[in-house]
């Protein structure tokens, strides 16, 4: 059976007209990504800065104050409570501080005696293991700095010369931003496509499609093209917004990003159509899309947590999530700038995944017509 472009086009126009009539949906589909991008960009950060911190100073001597001043100078700690009478375990219970330091009364006396170790205690809230680890590291580094200052640091053997590449200012927006773009455009293409497909089943208009001379492939391509266009419009808007608010722009070859945007949106649309025609019911379609396309992409694409941390037994899950590859490509496009040499593999995988999702949806369409 040949594919007739005219029919596909007609189907696309019908789909877009239908979408255009639903004002609220259209506004949400265009407006929501713009808000989501800001949220994702600004609210998602694992950076540990300004740790709420309490110091119980039982020593109250110039030395202990000097030690406290070292903590204040690092700008990693935000001193919430300080004094000899504060109750650190209580503050931890209430969640007001993430860590507390106790300086014992004999602190400066022990420091004055050569060769004797002064002991201080740090209490860390372990609920968030990541923050706890980092707080512990900062506290140790701060203490080391204080001790080195005390002793005069002439004895350094190896000195470290560090260089931070691609992002010398360590701006986390450079990292979070490209990921946020990806997650933002993840939701709507499959959601709208899934809803429209499920709606045809719910309202029975799918029967009209069966009766018409439209083939399954034409129906699929026509529907997909409509939502693909909506998705690409979103990509464009979101990119403009990211440039305005985050200052992100292509730093190298932009062709991998453009190509993979086309592929990624197509992936989502085909998946949405597949879900829609499998569930045949709008509310299930939404649940399915929001869990598979959105939650999985949000949590397992390496957007917030590194994929390397996922146990090997579960690694196959993120490898099926297209967002994972699209994020790699977008991070390269906006932050690293290597171009094709660095990202040919993720682009290739996206091509494979797109064909996979297409064949899923296509097979569903073929079966569907046989069933009815």
């Amino acid at each position: 059976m040949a594919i007739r472009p005219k029919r596909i086009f007609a189907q696309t126009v019908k789909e877009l007209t239908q979408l255009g009539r639903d004002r609220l949906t259209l506004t949400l589909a265009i407006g929501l990504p713009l808000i989501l991008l800001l949220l994702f960009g600004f609210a998602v950060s694992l950076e540990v800065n300004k740790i709420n911190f309490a110091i119980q100073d039982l020593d109250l001597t110039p030395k202990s104050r000097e030690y406290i001043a070292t903590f204040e100078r690092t700008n990693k700690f935000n001193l919430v409570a300080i004094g000899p009478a504060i109750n650190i375990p209580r503050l931890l219970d209430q969640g007001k501080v993430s860590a507390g330091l106790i300086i014992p009364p004999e602190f400066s006396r022990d420091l004055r005696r050569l060769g004797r170790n002064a002991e201080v205690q740090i209490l860390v809230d372990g609920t968030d293991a990541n923050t706890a680890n980092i707080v512990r590291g900062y506290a140790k580094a701060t203490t080391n700095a204080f001790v080195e200052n005390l002793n005069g640091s002439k004895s350094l053997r190896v000195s470290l010369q560090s260089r931070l590449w691609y992002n010398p200012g360590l701006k986390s927006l450079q990292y979070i931003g490209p990921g946020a773009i990806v997650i933002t455009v993840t939701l709507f293409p499959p959601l709208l496509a899934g809803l429209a497909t499920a709606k045809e089943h719910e309202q029975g208009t799918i029967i009209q499609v069966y009766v018409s001379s439209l083939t399954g492939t034409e129906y699929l391509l026509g529907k997909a093209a409509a939502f693909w266009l909506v998705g690409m419009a979103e990509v464009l808007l979101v990119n403009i917004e990211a440039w305005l608010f985050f200052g992100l722009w292509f730093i190298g070859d932009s062709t991998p990003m453009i190509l993979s945007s086309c592929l990624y949106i197509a992936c989502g649309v085909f998946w949405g159509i597949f879900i829609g025609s499998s569930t045949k019911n709008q509310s299930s379609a939404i649940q399915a899309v929001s869990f598979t396309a959105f939650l999985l992409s949000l949590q397992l694409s390496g957007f917030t947590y590194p994929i390397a941390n996922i146990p090997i037994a579960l690694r196959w899950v993120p490898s099926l999530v297209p967002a994972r590859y699209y994020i790699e490509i977008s991070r390269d496009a906006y932050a690293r700038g290597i171009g094709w040499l660095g990202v040919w593999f993720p682009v290739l995988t996206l091509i494979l995944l797109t064909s996979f999702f297409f064949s899923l949806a296509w097979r569903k369409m073929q079966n569907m017509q046989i069933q009815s």
Partner: protein
Amino acid sequence: MKNTILDTILGSRFFALFTKEFAQIFRNRQLMIQLLLPPTVFLLLFGFALSPNFENLKIGITDYSHSSKSREFTEIFNQTKAFVISRYYANQQDMIADLATGKLTVGITIPPEFADDFARKRPIQVQALYDAVDANTASISSSYISQLVSDYNSRYSTASQTGLRNQIRLQTSVFYNPGLDTSWFIVSGIFGIILTTIGSQAAASLVVREKEAGTIEQLVMTPASNTEVILAKVCPLLILLTIDVLIALLVAKSVFGVPLRGNLVVFVAIAVLYFLVGISIGILIATYSKSEQQTQLTAFFVNPPLVLLCGATTPISSMPTFMQWLTYLDPLRYFTEICRGFLLKGVGLETLWPQVVILLSFAVVLMSLSIRQFRQQLG
């Protein structure tokens, strides 16, 4: 006497509506599955898969010195779980190429004169290159590495002048999660996220479906008041969501070993209170929209901010200040604090009462708003 109370309950309009809603939900197999399956699956998946910890960061080493001293130095990277040496390179160019494609997080270059300088006690410069695209990982690994190097330095200086230096010994006690098990953090946070998403979406779709099918007029024409109609809609959902919480608690305890330190009866009661908030949000959304599609899109408008601003997966203290202010408007933020308080810290109402009071006021305000909105639309 007892009999008559039971009779009034069973004979009441509310109970009749309740039975109707209950039957409606239980007949809807798909909705049942949606309500009961994803929470468990996602709790398991995310609990196992998500970890914000930094482990096994890949280090590449170009050692131009090839001496026993330089090999001893590179040993320091094997001392923590944070790093794993992925490859030794013969020249720096190859290492830089791997850094560029993201195969390495850090590249270390040791100069040819390392052993020489070491013997003559001259200061040695070692170069560390970081792939800083991920600013956070880069800054964490750079602080790890400077810690390792400073440990290495102090090993050599204290060996030569034992006892002559002042030291401060830092004694760390980790509270609540001494094993620093990251799954505890994730599981206690995902709890609220899943229940909010499911609760509000299910409630919204139940209400809007009656609207779409036109059966809502029939409901309004019955002698039951709008409050009764809404409460009857809410109750079966509450029961299902409570079952969800019990399953989730079971999974948290048996699979992840989350300690569940607080009083669980009180916790479940607070959870039910929180569902009321979630369900009211759903009903409120449904009253504003005309179709299932609009409802769900609006739910997506409301749910992601709730989820992202609650501090369940990323610490609130790392957000910019204006975002931190917004988190105070997020009911899920308080529920997440309660979850962590009860399940991990083992504190009870005596510490968490402010959060409970806030949740209670959220529930009252949202519930009465949604009932009012419901009445206005149909009155």
